[in-house]
Each structure stands twice: as C-alpha cells, then as structure tokens.
C-alpha cells in the first residue's frame, strides 16, 4: 500500500472539503548489533547506519518520554553528556534544530559534523571510552502505520477528536509527515489550509516547532489555536 501522503478521505457527497482521517504509528524497536564506546567509532558508524537509525535516535525519545517537562535530549546528546561525560558536546548535539533539516541525510550530516568538529577542537575527547554495557547501541525503528477509527469533517469535529487521539497518532501527523515521509509541513496544517481554506490557522500550525514541546503540550497548543479560530 502507498504511504498516505495526506490523511484525507473523500467526503460522502463528493463535494466540499474532504474529511481528515487520523492515522497512528506504532513503533517496533530493532537492534543493528552495532555499538560505539568512543566518539571516533560513534561518528564512523553514524555515517554508515541506515536512515531509520538516524530517525530513531533523534525522534524516538519524543514518544518514550512525552510526559516529561522538560524532555530529555536526543539519544546522541544524552549518551555523549551523561555516559561519556562530554557535557559541552552533549549540549551542542542537544541544541541541533531538527526543524532546519528537511531530510534524514541532512540531519545525519549535522550530527556527524558536529562531533567531528568537536573532536578537531578537543583531540583529548577521542581517547574517552565507556565500559562494556554502556556503549551507544545503534537501534532502528520499524513503523507500523494504520488508520484509526477517527475522522473529522469540520474544524469543530477535529478539535473533539484531537482531545482523544493517542500521542502516537499526534506524533504521526506532526513528526512522521514532516521528516520521515519528506513533507515540508505537517498533515494538520495542510488539511486546515487545503481542505478548510483556513490559511492563517494552517500557517500558525505549520510554524509550530514540535521539537520544542512535549507531545501533550503540543496537543494543548493545537487545541488553543483551533478554539481561537472557532471563536
């Protein structure tokens, strides 16, 4: 089956806006068996592993710790700072703006490049290593995407459904749509603009930096924007 490029379904009458179908994305974790105990090995493997590894280590933590404020950092930043003890590099990796990267390849480049540059400036960091069991383990995710039973035909319907969908569904329409499937915006913003003709709402939702919020906070912000529009 083709990827749902936009989560819209045809309206029953065949006229008017198409309804929005909510999908969800369930994640199965898989190990590559690759592990790094030093920064040089980490950066070498970073350049070799499949895109799904880069995606996993820069995104899965958002789902895993979605209830925490502030959220922990991405996996690379966490390991470098908390396990290897290179706090300054960890800070640099944590502050990479994922929104600036439209592809996983570009994100891979910036993560690897940040580490390489740091190693040039701090050659002593090349020698640091962690003991067995504390290495960085390269994992990847298998995403199973399926439609939920929820649809919305109007903005009011949409707001009602948004309150109830899982964080995984929210994640799929905001994050998966933008980076993993290569869309420049997110599914919600597109639907508001293209189907409901709500350009301002679409722009406001498209401009949101989802990486700066927990998923529950994001849900709250989206609901506020929609309710404001409904008023």
């Amino acid at each position, binding site marked *: 089956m083709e990827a749902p490029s936009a989560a819209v379904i045809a309206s029953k009458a065949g006229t008017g806006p198409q309804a929005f179908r909510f999908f969800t994305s369930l994640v199965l974790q898989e*190990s590559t068996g690759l592990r790094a105990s030093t920064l040089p090995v980490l950066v070498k493997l970073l350049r070799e592993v499949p895109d799904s590894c880069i995606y996993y280590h820069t995104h899965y933590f958002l789902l895993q710790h979605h*209830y925490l404020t502030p959220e922990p950092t991405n996996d690379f930043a966490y390991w470098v700072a908390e396990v290897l003890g290179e706090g300054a590099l960890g800070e640099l990796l944590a502050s990479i703006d994922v929104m600036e990267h439209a592809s996983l390849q570009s994100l891979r480049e910036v993560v690897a490049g940040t580490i390489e540059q740091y190693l040039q400036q701090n050659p002593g960091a090349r020698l640091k290593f962690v003991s067995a069991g504390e290495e960085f383990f390269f994992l990847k995710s298998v995403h199973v995407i*399926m439609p939920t039973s929820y649809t919305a035909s109007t903005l009011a319907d949409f707001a009602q459904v948004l309150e109830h969908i899982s964080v995984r569904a929210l994640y799929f329409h905001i994050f998966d749509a933008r980076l993993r499937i290569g869309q420049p915006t997110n599914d919600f913003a597109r639907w508001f603009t293209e189907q409901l003709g709500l350009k301002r709402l679409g722009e406001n939702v498209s401009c949101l930096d989802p990486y700066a919020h927990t998923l529950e906070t994001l849900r709250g912000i989206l609901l506020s924007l929609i309710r404001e529009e409904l008023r």
Partner: protein
Amino acid sequence: MSGLAAYEPIAGPSTVAELIQLAKRLADRRVVMVNSTRVGGGVAEILNRMVPLLTELGLDVRWEVVEGPGPFYRVTKAFHNALHGAPELISQEMYDLFLEVGRANAERLDLDQDIVFIHDPQPIVFVERRKRRPRARWLWRCHIDVSRPDQVAWSFLEPFILRYDAAVYSAPAFTQRMAMRQLLIAPSIDPLSDKNRELNTEEVDAVLQRLEVPRDRPIVTQVSRFDRLKDPVGVIDVFRRVRRSVKCRLVLAGGTATDDPEGEEVLAQVRDRAKGDPEIHLLLLPPNSDVEINALQRASTVVLQKSIREGFGLTVSEALWKARPVVASAVGGIPLQVQHRYSGLLVHSIEGAAHAVKQLLGNPAYAKRLGENGREHVRHNFLLTRHLTDYLLAFLSLDYTTDTIFLNGH
C-alpha cells in the same frame, strides 16, 4: 470489568483501541508459546497474563511447557548461568541431555502453527522441526542478559538461534552482531494483577502484621528469587552499612522457581549471613504470594534491586509503579527502567548502593519525586498493554522486509 477493557482507565482508551485495531490484522493466527515453567519467575508470570489477553484479541494461542527430568534442569540452570557470563563447566553429557530432552519435547508437542514463539534456551532446539512447515514464523525470545555470555555455551546455541526468523531481546546491550533480525521488546508488569493492583492502607497493614514486620522505622526492601545473581548477600552488606547511620529495617522477600535447583543453596547462605539480626526480615514466600509482595513494596521507604546480572529486573518496574524510590544496579534492563537521578538511582557497588539508600532515606521529598516520575515512566513504557502491542507488531513485521509498514483500514 475484566479483560482488555479494564486496562483503559490505566493505559488510556486510545492505547487499548489501537491494540484492538492492530490485532484485527492477526485474527485467527495460530500461535504457540513454549517456555520451561508455568509457575515462578518473570516469564511464567507474563505468559499467565498475556495468553488470555492475546486470545481475547482474536489470536488462537496455546501455551506449552517443556518437561524434563531433574538433571535436565541442572543443565538448563548451568546454561542460564553461562549465558549470564558466569564460569560453568558444561560437559558433553550435559549437552547431550539438553538436546535429547529438547527433541523429545518437540516430538511430543504440536508445533504445526502459524507462529512458534520459543522462550529462552530450554526449548531452543525445537527449531530443528521448522522444516516440516516452512511458511510458519519462528521467534526466539531471550529473557536472559546475554551481553557477555560464556563463549562456549553461546557457540553451542548460536546455530539454533540463526535458524529463527528473528530473535527478541529485552535490552540493546543483549544483542550481538548476527546475520538475523534482532527485535527489542522489554517485558512488562500487569497493573491489574494481585502483585500490582492498588491496595488500601488496611490491606498493607494486615500483610505486614501477618509477616511480623514492624513499621516502627523505615523499611528497605529487596524482592527477588533467592538467586546468586540477585546478590541477596550483598543486600545484607548494603543494609549493614546504611544502618550505621540510619535506623531502618531490611526485608528480603522471595521464593524459588521450580526450574531453579540452586535456590536452596543460596537461601542457606543468606540465612547464615542474616542469623541473629532482628532487623533483617528474611521472608521465604510461597508461590502466589502476590498480595504480600505488593504490600511489602508499598510499605517500603526504599526499594533495592542490587542484582549482579539481570534478564530485565521487573521488580524495579513493580516498585516504580507503586511510586516507590528505587536504588538499583545498572545492569541488564534496569537502566531502561531507571533514569539515573530522574526516576531512581543507579549504582555499581555495595558502597554506592548504601550511599544511595542513605540519600533517599534522608531526603523524603527527593525520594517522593523520583518515585512519582518512575510511576509515569512505567505507565508509558512497561505496562502489559505496551508489551502486547510489541508482540503483535513483531508477529506482523515478520511478513515484511521494510522499515515502514502501512496497513489498510480494517
């Protein structure tokens, strides 16, 4: 309310709804689960809850158990220790017995199913039979910490593992570089079981009274089988260090599993070390003491899990689910459950464990915050509903080779 619906208030209605949607894609698939015991230990506990729920979800699931003579369990225990990295001498006779009993069981059981799900090494040789039905999917589920296995034992098992469609491990550190799919599925706790359900104060008090554990001072507890790898003797050493400066009691509670012949020996060592100390409460609990364990964990000021190695260490999630502050060794799957200084304290030594326990006993507000964070972490990552979802995803993923799987409406 029973069955899946009962999990909605805890895990969330959307989580249960997604689980049901996913299961529709696997309706009527015939699954056989095989492990080594129906009673005692985490695997049996999980299967006891999981099999009925998978059935409710529409899969046709059977649960079979390997049967063997006493010496077979000596051999499998030796394998278990060796895979955990302990030095074990496994003789040719022992390997032969392992193969012989495994093959006899494979002959006895009906393995003609769509999905054959083998747990741990005891039934691993069953995979020799897969050639009779090539379209069936075979999964090997390893519940053991195999991060640093004895190489002789691993070399013996590896050819069998490679014949499965996928191996499933509890933590990334357990995976190896192997030419096969290695899935990661953490185990889980059941929030509705007697071991984890809510208890009121009267129920907790009654259990403590019956077990003769006074509540006159803080209680430090470790719940685990009397197994060398859980380091119960080390726990007593930790307690004695803590007690030098903080008045408290130690509860060491556990039992032994039917597939663990070493339990009695370890228990004797622990008894010897604790002898004559009225503040150490050594509780040898019979199987099905779930309410007692629940109450002991809830009555604890700090819960300790000072394991040397761990398959996963689910007692940590049990304690966190009760919002108890936890001090635990950074081994096996424990670092997945405890984020250091956020949802508990990770330690690497007796000295470190004693220091951490003292920190928590001396800072109740900090201890409370760790416990509350821990409960949320478990809610989102280590409940049975997440585990069921992962198993269904694993079954489904065996039909695909891509990293993204789109399922049609159903």
